[in-house]
Structure formats: C-alpha cells, structure tokens
C-alpha cells in the first residue's frame, strides 16, 4: 500500500460541509469514477457488460442506475461509472475488466469534484445555479449543465437531494458559487 496522503478537491484533509437554512452542501471525496465509451459496433455488448457491472440495465439517456456501483449517461453510448472510493479506488481497472474490448475506459476519479446538495429548499438554490428545470427532475435523473461557466453534471438522488459534479481544478469556484446561491436564496 502506498504512503501518499490524499487531499480533497477543496484542498483540505477533510471534506467541507456548509449549511444555510434547510440546505446542506457537502464535498464528497469518497467517490471513484471511470468513463465508459462503447467501441464502434459493440454498443449493445458494451451496454450489456455495463449492466452486469452495475447490476441493472445500462442507464438510458439522462438517467443513472445501480448501487453501490452506479452509472450515469454522459453521451451517446457513453457513461460515467461511479462507486465508493474506499472499496473501488481501482474502479477503472474493474470497469475495463468487466467491459473488455467492448468499450474504452478511462479513470475519471480525480477529474471531478462532487458536492451533494440537499434540504427542503434545495430547488431555490439550484434555480440560481443552472438552467436545468430541477423541479422536473426525478430520482435517477442526470443531466449535464453549465454552472457559472463550468461544465457540470447534476444528478437527482432523491427528492430534495442532488449531486453536482464539476471540474476538480475549479472546485473552489464551484463551491463559492453554490454557497453564494445558498446565502442568496435561503
């Protein structure tokens, strides 16, 4: 086991948590990610292999499925696989093993920062952040969207509970935007 100590995207040793009113924003470093893109002509096989990996059919457009290993749709025949970091730090290898030559897999764990946003008034915060109609999002919906010029993914985990994935290098800017929206809306 290597002896390098990780820091979170916001630069701390512990994830940052902020609460304003009913809404809490938590930095979530404990997640491993790998992108999966089906090879040309192997789309169906790739979807099947992915289904096996996540234990449920490969997510349709705009959806995410599976637990503890889940996947969300990111593009035509492309998905992002998501799993707990502690148990799946080598997620990309696992995914590659599962998908074989039906898909290209890339490690994406540290390409992203994840913030979980939850609470009764979360919609009032989201409407200050992105053009998605979050009111219409249901559990299991996932969508790409810009937030303050950053390309992000928004996932609806449950009513009043969302995850936002943004580019890791801009974690500070994204966090600032979310906290400012929370102060403004709540």
């Amino acid at each position, binding site marked *: 086991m*290597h*002896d390098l100590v990780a820091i*979170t995207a916001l630069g701390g040793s512990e994830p940052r948590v902020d609460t304003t009113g009913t809404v809490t924003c938590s930095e979530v470093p404990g997640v491993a990610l790998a992108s999966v893109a089906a*090879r040309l002509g192997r789309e169906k096989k790739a979807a099947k292999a992915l289904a096996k990996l996540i234990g449920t059919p490969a997510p349709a457009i705009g959806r995410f499925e599976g637990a503890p290993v889940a996947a969300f749709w990111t593009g035509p025949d492309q998905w992002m696989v998501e799993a707990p970091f502690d148990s799946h730090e*080598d997620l990309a290898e696992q995914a590659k093993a599962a998908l074989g030559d039906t898909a*290209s897999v890339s490690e994406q764990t*540290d390409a*992203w920062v994840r913030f979980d946003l939850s609470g009764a008034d979360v919609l009032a915060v989201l409407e*200050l952040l992105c053009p998605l109609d979050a009111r219409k999002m249901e559990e299991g919906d996932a969508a790409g969207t810009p937030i*303050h010029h950053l390309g992000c993914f928004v996932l609806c985990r449950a009513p009043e509970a969302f995850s936002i994935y943004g580019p890791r290098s801009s974690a500070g800017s994204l966090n600032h935007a979310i906290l400012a929206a929370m102060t403004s809306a709540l």
Partner: protein
Amino acid sequence: MTQGNRLSGGQIDRNTTLNFKFDNRSYTAHPGDTLASALLANNVRLIGRSFKYHRPRGLLTAGSEEPNGIVELRTGNRQEPNTRATTIEMFDGLEARSQNRWPSLKFDALAINDRFSNFLTAGFYYKTFMWPAAFWEKLYEPMIRRAAGLGSLSMQEDPDEYDKGFRHCDLLIIGAGPAGLMAALTAGRAGADVILADEDFALGGRLNSESFALNDGTAADWAAQAVAELSALPNVRLMPRTTVIGAFDHGIYGAVERTGDHLASLPAGKPRQILWRIYTKRSLLCAGATERPIAFENNDRPGIMLASALRTYANRFATTAAQRVAVFTNNDDGHRTAADLHAKGVKIAAVIDVRPDAPINHDYEVLRGAQVSDTKGRLGLSFVEIALADGSTRVLECGALGVSGGWNPNVHLTCHQRGRPVWNDDLAAFVPGTDLPPGLSVAGAANGAFSTHGALRSGAESAMKALDLKGSLPDLPAAEDAPASQTPFWYVQGCSRAWLDQQNDVTVKDVKLSHQEGFRSVEHLKRYTTLGMATDQGKTSNMGGLAIMAELAGKSIPETGTTIFRPPYTPVPIATFAGRMKGKEFHPTRLTPSHYWAKERGAVFVEVGNWLRAQWFPLPGETHWRESVDREVRQTRASVGVCDCTTLGKIDVQGSDAAAFLNRIYCNGFAKLAVGKTRYGLMLREDGMVMDDGTAARLAEDHFVVTTTTANAVGVYRHMEFVRQCLFPDMDVQLISTTEAWAQYAVAGPNSRKLLQKIVDPEFDISNEGFPFMACGNITVCGGLRARLFRISFSGELAFEIAVPSRYGDALMRRLMAEGEEFNVVPYGTEALGVMRIEKGHAAGNELNGTTTALNLGMGRMVSKKKDSIGSTLSEREGLNEPDALMMVGIKPVSQTDKITAGGHLMNATGPVDAAHDQGYATSAAFSPALDCHIGLGLLKNGGARMGEKMRLVSPVTDLTVEVEIVSAHFVDPEGERLRA
C-alpha cells in the same frame, strides 16, 4: 409642511410614517408610497431639469414610462443616477437628489440655454463648431461634454450583490392588471405551471388606480382577492417587482426582479436584483396601455401631467399634485380623472375638452371645443390659457393640469423580434401586429381591449387559447365596458415650443425642422432630433412625433412609419446583467494539484487562461524576480527541478482506429508509433496553419494519451470530436479529457532519474536502457500508487513527466521535494520553464500564434505528403511557401549586455527603418543563464539562410534599437545529448 396634498383613502399604510430626504430637505411618507407620490403629497412639484434647455421638470406620469421625474437615489457608493421617482418604492431613510442642475434645482445656471433655444435647434451641432478646426477638440467639445449627461456615478465600486437565475413555466404572464390577473386565474385554476410577473410592487395594474367597482367591491379589492387566490395555488408563481425586459429567441424572456431596492439596506449576501432567464412554452403579454399626452405651447411645466397619472396619485396614493386642477382631454377618460379628483375633494378648475360634444358635468365646468393654448408659471404651473370654441381666450388658475390624448397599447415586447405593430383606425393607435415573437400572444389593453370588462375577458380567453384549454370561459366579475374608440388629437395647431420629448427637449418645432431638412423617415427623425432617445425611450413621446411628421409629409401615420422598441423594456443596471461574475469571480479559477503546497512555499502566481500557475518561487533575500528565475533555471540545469505541468491538456484517445485517427489529426505520422513510445505531434488547422503541438504517448495498441498546450486544451478536444463525429464517423475511436484527473509534474535535470528512482517502485526499470528517451508507461510509485511516466523534455535536459491521480498530487510534490533534498532539488515556475524552452528553441504560444505554418516554425518537413491529414492540402498554397517565408531563428545581442525585446521588429543592419523594410520580429525573449545574456526567438524572412547575419532589432514603442545576430534557435545542447542521457 407635512403631506399637505394628502387625500383620503388610497392604498398606503397611514399607521406607519417613513422619513425621507429630497435635496437634503426632510419629508415624511407612508408604506405604499413611491418617491413620486410622497413628493406630491409634500407639495413638491419641481423635481429635475431637462437635458438641453435645463427647463424645470416635474412628474409627468405615475409609472415606469416617466421621462421627467428622475433623481439620484441613495448616497456614497450606492448612488444611483437617473432613477425614476415614480418607480422608487418608499423606505425609511430614503435619500434622493435632483440632477443636471447647478448650483441648485431652483436656480440652475444652465437654464440660460433656454434663452438660446432658437440657436440650439435639432442638429445644430452638425452645422457648426467646425472653425477653426482645432477648436472642436480643445474648446467646443469639452464644453458640450461638461454639459452632457443627467445623473452622476459615484465613481466607486458598486458594493451590492446581484444574482442570475433560471425559471421554467408553461405560461408566462407579463403584467398583473385585469387581463393578467384574469389570465393567471384561468391558467392557474386549470393546473398550468404559471409565472405572473409585474414591474409594480403591488399587483393589480390599473385596477389599483381606479375608483370604479368590480362586482360589489372596488377594483383594488378584486385585485387583492385574485392575488390571494393565486398565492394559494402551488402551480402559480407570483413575481412582483419584476420587469420582463425582453423577448428573446425561442420563448426565452429576460426578467429583472428587484429583490432589494425597496429595502433601506440589504442583509449580507442577499442580492439587490436578480436577472431571471425565464424559459416559457407560451407567454401572454398583458402590459396594459400608456396614456399619451397632447402637445401644446409650454406643456412641460411641473404640474402638467398625464390625466391618468393624476388619477393614480389620487386613488392609489391618496395625493394630488395641487389643490386646484384642470384637465385637458380629447376623450372620456380625461373626465374620469376630473370626477375622481372632485370626489376626493380636489377643486376642478375646468375640464377642457377639444370635442364640441363632450359630456358635461354638474360638479365642475366643462369647456367644450376648447384647447389649451399656453401655460404660465416659472418653476411650476400656475395658469393655463385656453382658446375657447368661440375664439376667445380664457385664463384659468390651477396648480396642475391633467392631459389625456387617449391611450397607446404597450406593444413593446411584441417588437423585440423585429415584429411591427399595425395601425388600428378605431383606436387611432398601434396595436400588436401578426408577426409576434413565437409563443407570445397579447391580451387586454396591450391588445387594444381598453375597457375593464374587455381586458378581463381577453385575459381569460387568451390564457385558454394559449394553453389549449377546453370548456367555457370562467365567470368574469362585473366591470365597466366603456367603448374604446379614440379620435386622435396630437397637438394644438400653431404651437411651436410644445414638448414631445420632455427629457431631451424635443419640440414640435424640431420635428418641423427635421422634416424641412429631409430627415423624414422615423429613424432619421429620431436620430436627428434625439426624439425618444432619452431614458424613457420615448414611451410617451414617439407617437406624437410620428403623428406630426405624418401630417407634415401629408401621409397617414402607418405610411410614415411605425415606432418599434428594443430591449430592455426599462433600463437595467449593468451589474444586474453581470450577476456574480465580477472581481475575482469574473471567471472560474483553476488550481493545480500542487497549488496549496506552492502557496506555502511563497510562490508568485500568474493567470494562464483560467489557471493559476506558480510563476516563480522566491527565496528569502531575493529582491528581484530575475534572481529567483535565474536560480531555478541554473539549479534545474545543474541538478534537478520540478514543475507542475498539470495544466497541459490531456486527452485519452482509445479504440481500434486510435492510431489512424491521430494520423489524420497530426500532420506527421503516428500509425507506426510503438507501444510504450511517445512522439511529438504537430496539429494543423484545415487552413494549413499550426493549431497546436504536443505529444502522443502510446500506452497500448488501442490507447494513446495526447497532450495539448494549456491554452488550446478545450479547442483541440472540440476539434478532435469534430473530426471524429463529422468527418470520420466510422472510425472506432473514443475521446475523453483527462486533464484534471492526473497531477503531472515535469522532473528535469541531470539528476532527474536519480530522484525518480527514489519514488518509482523498484519493479520498474527507468534506466536509460530500460526507459529511453520518448518512452512512456504505466508504473507505480511510493509503494503501489498507480502512475504514468513519460520521458519527454521541454527544457532540453534529461527529463520525465510523472502523473498520479490528482488527489495525491500535493503529497507527491512534497515527497519529490523531500527525496530531492540530497540533489538540491528546486521547484520551478512558468518563468523558468519559459526561459529553458527558449534556450532550447521550442516553439510555444508566442510562436504558435495562429498565423504560423509548420514551415515558419522550421518543421515544414514534418507535414507528411503521404497521407491525408487536416490542413496538409491547404498548407501547400503558394502564399504560404514563398522563398522569403518567415522562419524561426534565434536572436542574440551583439553586445552581451543588450536586451532583446519580444515584439521588436527585425531590420537589416543598414538601410531605412520602416514598415516597407520590415524583415520579421522577435516572438519571445528571455535572459539566458546558460548564455549569460538575453536571447530571443524570432520569425525572420528566409531566416533559415541568414544564420550569422547582423541585424537591428527595433522597438520604437519601447524606444530601443539593438544590434543582434541571427543564430540557430537551439541555444542549448543543439545535438540533444542531454535529453538522451
């Protein structure tokens, strides 16, 4: 004096008293007041001065169409110029000042302009101030500029926050008057997702201004009930204090919500305003109508107002502009004002009606067939002179005159996508045309349904139609249904100094002059006279100007033109459009994985695109940046240095056609690159210019990692997706950016291998034999952490780039520094990086400037003719391959101490120094510790053949001329022995 002009009733809260100041005098008001109504209540009629003639100005209206009553609101860094008193919601402690006057509102020195008005006619400035030529900029223009403008900025940073937001709905209803409320009730009860927005703080529109009944109660009561019902519907969102400012493409509306303007101060972090982008399936414009004035001689005195505004002030705000009021009208609506004021106890001097058959009234005098021929009163109206039907003249004493020339539908938003309103003869007004923004329909007075019943009915019908609701109309409250026909009366014959645009001082006379000089189209008229260009955008003036122009041209109004409107509906603070994107948050900031460590080390950072990168790492005692940079370069070249190069773009290219794909993307060949090897790649745009350069490392038969320059990472990825999806859709290739996933550090210098051997796990052989120049591979470090190693060099030294997952980047950097201590390892920043690449003669951003070809950069032979790649065909054009084409060269000063200036131009050693003799230019320059002098890279005509030539590097803009020698661009280790060591 305390609110001497207050009347009974109204929708103000008399239980609470608010204090405010205007021009440093204290007054009182009540919640529910606007600044305008409060000033009237306190008998203040004079509020400002006009733009050109500095004529005294009072309120004309009670709404956002106000041209005259504009003030500087608040103080200090919240000073807000040109704010319409009619839309300022009263709060305790409000401070406002009049503007465009000196030394005071009552005694304004520039009022002298009014005496010279005969010289200052429309467009006079185009005809004069030309002699002598030099005087325009030295004397005339400064004079004009000093007089220009109305209010003042504080010149300080706006301290408030602004937000932007996004809302979606099935139906956006714009305006909450009778039509809007009825539409919202209809749509809301049907379960539709509705937003109802209104610029006012009180929903109800004109219902709040009228005295007539709806059903059994007052109009305002019905409005309040409707609002209460709507508030209880979960599918209806009410947005008071929200102005829909523009109708943009595909059902997107811009709306500004004033969340904080009615507050004395904002809670921390709360926005003053929010710019909403509202995405609509359908929208309904219920913006009502605006009363239009009549032009007559001296019709601009404070106290002369729109009749409907007088009525609003009386009924809604319980105030009057004066105790003795006259009304000048061409329609029945003007009589309503007289009746309402009379009912509130205001003395009606007379109703002057141009119609010989005007209705009479037993409570006050009606002068039928009469017209106002002039007015008097220095700082406010005191007398009106009336031409009676029998030709005689009569003078009436009054402090206010209500003017009603009929109503214009508020069609503004229907024009935002270049739609043109159409003329309606019955109404003698423009109504919305047929080319409306898609999805928008219009109801109520905005669509010409002027009666209350008509507006309610049209609101309900339009909502049903917009949502495709079946069934019968909902029950409508019983309301007045007066006929809406209007006979136009634009101006009193013979008038001359009769104002159309009161803020910009455009009179009937100016329109006549405009016509006389050939400026006859509506656009010429507006531009020549400035009619309608003031802060009110001509809401009350454009129609009058157009009507007069039509009469002069002997054409009908619609033949003469239409008045169309552009966004925004009312002016919007610039800060509102910017939202949070200001100061440090203007753009997102990207931090490298070693950022926090570098900050601890005291690094100086520099913006590179959105990234912050360490520029250099000063040590205690170093007083000049060059000391730090020179040290970093020397130490790296002497032993080993580490630089965070995570910012370079990284793209995973995978698939069975990955190599074939890269062969198309790069002008040089990639098909035969062995697994475990890296190759430099040059990417052209289709026009043959160099787009970017970088390396591609083949990690597996079907897997490459491509690097791009920091600046072009996003563009190159987009380009590659274009090539993949649009040009070669059947290639089996998959792309994804991994820039942020990996922390990547250059470890450079003769001891770089030794340093790396201390952290790379022992099973990986990184010796020169086991891991030669341009090798690459997956490895592990520090006891099993997955990593990637590339043996590539930008500095020209023996060098590697090592990558680990970003979260471990901080720890890896600390480990490299700790393990490197024995080698005297040095962290280096972008400056040292730049110095070393110039010493090595590597092209970078300054050379890859979008206008250089591979040939220019000395890499012409890399462009393979044996295969198809983007840009290869067009790179062969003659103009890009001329014998004297620019070629990259090195530049050295002849005198060791001279400085090379990037951006200097190269001239022959002798001969003229001018553009015609330009030979090229220096692209980059730096002090080279290796050569102990300044060096540069440059692009020189036929540069390849001019080695050793002495030239002049001239930079007149920095006042430098230096004798230089043209040398090879490879200053350091030209044979490349070090990097292969």
